[in-house]
């Protein structure tokens, strides 16, 4: 929500679900269909730029909202390791000319 509204797009339908399943949870055909229909209706009916929040919700608990990319003492070392690995990979790609 915050990233898309910061960027600004002509029309935005927000499903408040964990990242990975923008149309609806795995197997939730009803929400997946509804998401596409709502987005299409926004496309043809909006008179101006609009942000709409759907009523889709994650079936499990809400812990994902707090846990996504969380930083605390428990993962401090692991994150530093990931950062080092990330920078090593980027430098390697650059050295191999893998960039745009």
């Amino acid at each position, binding site marked *: 929500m915050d990233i898309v509204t910061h960027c600004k797009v002509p029309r935005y339908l927000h499903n408040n679900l964990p990242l990975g*399943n923008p149309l609806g949870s795995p197997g939730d055909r009803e929400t997946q269909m509804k998401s596409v229909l709502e987005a299409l209706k926004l*496309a043809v009916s909006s008179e101006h730029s609009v942000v709409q929040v759907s009523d889709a919700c994650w079936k499990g608990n809400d812990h994902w909202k707090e846990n996504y990319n969380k930083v605390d003492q428990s993962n401090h070392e692991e*994150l530093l390791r990931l950062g080092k690995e990330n920078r090593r990979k980027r430098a390697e790609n650059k050295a191999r000319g893998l960039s745009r």
Partner: protein
Amino acid sequence: MKDQEFVPYFVPYMERTRLFYRAQGFEKDYVWAHFEATPFSKPEKPLEDCVVTVVTTAVAHPKIPKPTRKAESIPFAETPAQFDTSELSWDKETTHTEDRQSYFPLEVLNKLAGQGIIKSVSKRFHFVPTQYSQGATINDDAPAIAKACRNDEVDIALLIPL
């Protein structure tokens, strides 16, 4: 007493991401694209006359190294049974992407076309890479996808990033 109003909680992804990468030792924060205004136009025809396509960040051709991936327009007929989503940032602890329909609505669009709710599904869908270069997105990828959409006479493009 007034009923307490339900206020949905949206994950503050920008702040979360800034802290996440600072904790990894990155010194410069990521700068997200930002525009003061957005071009807007309303389709001049009803939904049942519209050709619809999809723009996805899911990777159809994972053999191309991530840093060199460019926008691609791919026939829907060549939609992979499973896209590669392993290099994308999504909530891998909470969910999974084994159900393609949870992020790529080919079956839904075919159904809507069959029911006459939309005119048709476009010949091709479009891949847009997730890289750090806003220049590559603005100057190369977006214009390439817009051109392909015009060639395919697309009326509505649904951007569905993971």
